[in-house]
């Protein structure tokens, strides 16, 4: 049994709305783990909690008013660090009915504790590729020097000249043309694709055990997306990277991920190996996953031959997804489920439980888990 690099157990995040004096759930009891040499994909619509997961793993949610519960355990060379340990001591929750401040947070000690814990983790164990690389670099500082700085900070390298050589080496490894010249370029002097390559080089230069990529191909052209994906594939093979990739693109998942999590409204609704999840001909899917797959693969849409009514219904469903932020997470998917009317196991019991309570995450086959009353 491999020990996972990162283990997330029952992570829930709730934000506090100061004006309405109530808590907004953003993540509900999410659990997953990442083994070595494994790429985990997270897929889901915007607002489903993908980015919140990444931010809470990286400890960047610290200053915000809200509650984080659960366990995030990093395993670094045998030492286990739970970054959320004892952190709930600094938060007191009052009763919502009295119109006082609902949450009181000792932000100072909270920040102190998290920065102390994450100082050993950020950059050294985890590093991140950002969605828009040009905005994530320092605009007035050359990219090569920024990479060199990350080499000097996080590896045993102390000499500036040799660190420069390693930085240029990383730029060649991400297939930057004329790396020694590009070393002196400022970020606004690079095209989007080159900038993303530099970002990847910077993330890898600190030699992390785990790489987190937040929609690494979103702002790029189709051809450059393809180049970046093949680069990531190659790096994954050569350096035996463990990665978390967040995206809403099936192509990215298909090419990179070993396992895929499907998110919906802060829940993991389906989990399994990539070939199982992305198998659009299979019937054992959560209805939301099949909806996603239908939008991606045209052939199955034709094959299923949706009538005009169901398409209209789908359109309505998409509109209602805009309002999900104000809806309690319990009933939200029930409203949107396209198979709700034709559900073959729809007895009165299931109909009631579908409307009122959250289904459990049921293991169906090997690694494949689905959260739906149909399979419960």
């Amino acid at each position: 049994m491999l020990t996972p690099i990162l283990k997330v157990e029952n992570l829930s995040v709730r934000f506090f709305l100061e004006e309405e004096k109530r808590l907004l759930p953003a993540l509900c009891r999410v659990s997953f783990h990442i083994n070595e040499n494994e790429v985990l994909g997270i897929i889901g619509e915007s607002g489903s909690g993908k980015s919140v997961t990444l931010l809470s793993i990286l400890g960047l949610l610290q200053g915000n008013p809200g509650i984080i519960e659960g366990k995030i355990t990093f395993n670094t060379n045998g030492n286990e660090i739970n970054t959320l340990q004892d952190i709930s001591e600094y938060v007191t929750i009052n009763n919502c009915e009295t119109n006082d401040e609902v949450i009181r947070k000792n932000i100072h000690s909270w920040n102190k504790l998290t920065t102390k814990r994450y100082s050993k983790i950020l950059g050294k164990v985890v590093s991140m590729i950002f969605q828009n690389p040009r905005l994530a670099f320092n605009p007035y500082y050359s990219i090569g020097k920024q990479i060199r700085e990350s080499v000097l900070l996080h590896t045993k390298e102390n000499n500036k000249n040799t660190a420069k050589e390693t930085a240029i080496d990383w730029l060649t490894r991400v297939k930057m043309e004329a790396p020694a010249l590009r070393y002196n370029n400022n970020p606004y002097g690079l095209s989007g694709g080159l900038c993303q390559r530099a970002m990847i080089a910077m993330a890898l230069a600190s030699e992390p055990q785990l790489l987190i990529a937040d929609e690494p191909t979103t702002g790029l052209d189709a051809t450059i997306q393809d180049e970046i994906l093949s680069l990531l594939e190659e790096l994954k093979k050569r350096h035996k990277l463990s990665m978390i990739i967040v995206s809403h693109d099936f192509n990215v998942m298909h090419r990179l991920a070993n396992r895929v999590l499907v998110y919906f409204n802060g829940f993991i609704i389906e989990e399994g190996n990539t070939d199982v999840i992305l198998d659009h001909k299979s019937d054992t899917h959560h209805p939301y996953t099949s909806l996603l797959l239908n939008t991606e693969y045209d052939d199955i849409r034709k094959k299923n031959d949706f009538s005009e009514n169901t398409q209209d219904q789908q359109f309505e469903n998409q509109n209602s997804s805009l309002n999900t932020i104000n809806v309690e997470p319990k009933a939200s998917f029930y409203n949107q489920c396209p198979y709700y009317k034709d559900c073959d196991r729809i007895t009165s019991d299931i109909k009631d439980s579908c409307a009122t309570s959250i289904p459990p995450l049921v293991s169906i086959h090997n690694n494949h888990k689905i959260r739906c009353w149909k399979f419960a």
Partner: protein
Amino acid sequence: MNNMTKKEIYKSKQKNTSSRSFFEGLILIYCVIILGSVFVAYTLTTFELVNVNYEDMDFDAILALPFTEGHLLGTDYLGRDIFNRLLMGTQAYLIPGLMAVSISIIFGSILGSLTIFKNRGIKRAISLSTDLLQTMPRLVLLMLIIAIFEADIYYIMLVIGVTNIPTVADLVSRRIDILRDKSFIEASIANGTPSHTLIGKHILWYNCRILLIGQASLGMAEAVLMETSLSYLGFGVQEPIPSWGNMVQTGTNYLLQGNLWSSTIPAFAIMLVLLAFYLIAEVLIKRIDKNSS
């Protein structure tokens, strides 16, 4: 445009950029000459490298015109050499002004960079104090301070420096807001940059230095203006120690008698120095605009 060949377009572009840099070069030369001569005058007078007789009265040449023998820029109503007094007058503002500027820049940038920790209290304090200072004219505040304490140039410059702190802090915190929008701060925290490197190196040095030097130049101009106007009103440097402000004041008494020079020459000197500081600030601000666009 169609008639224009590529070469011509290229040439016109090149001409454009070169003319801009030519203009900037002229400004640079002007600023170096003016500020360099101020600095040289200061070092000459403080270390007494040259014997500057600013108090010696030449009774044979009272209210002499410029270019008279022995007096390059003429004399004032007591027959004192105006050129020597101009040189001596640099002592009145240079070091006190630098003190005021360094107080405002150092404390302002520290206060402003503390807003990186998302502390609302600091941000509120900055915006409140900028608003509060805008309601009160600086000169009135200075006169109040002089009335309470005493008319010492270092008190005045301390007040100018302290009242400029919120402006600098506001500039730095706005720059931090822009970087936060660009997700740079988040990214560098996520990649494990320690906060002192992030603030000192990345934010203050690489992103704010031009801004801060520009602000320092403006602050220096303001300090000179404040010192000279207070000295003109009789609250700053007192006679017989020369300041450009009190030189203008003593000269104005003889303006209507037909002696223009004893008041206009120091006034002209004030104008030249202020212009140099303002031009530096403007060139730097233009450079920021060009880079950010």
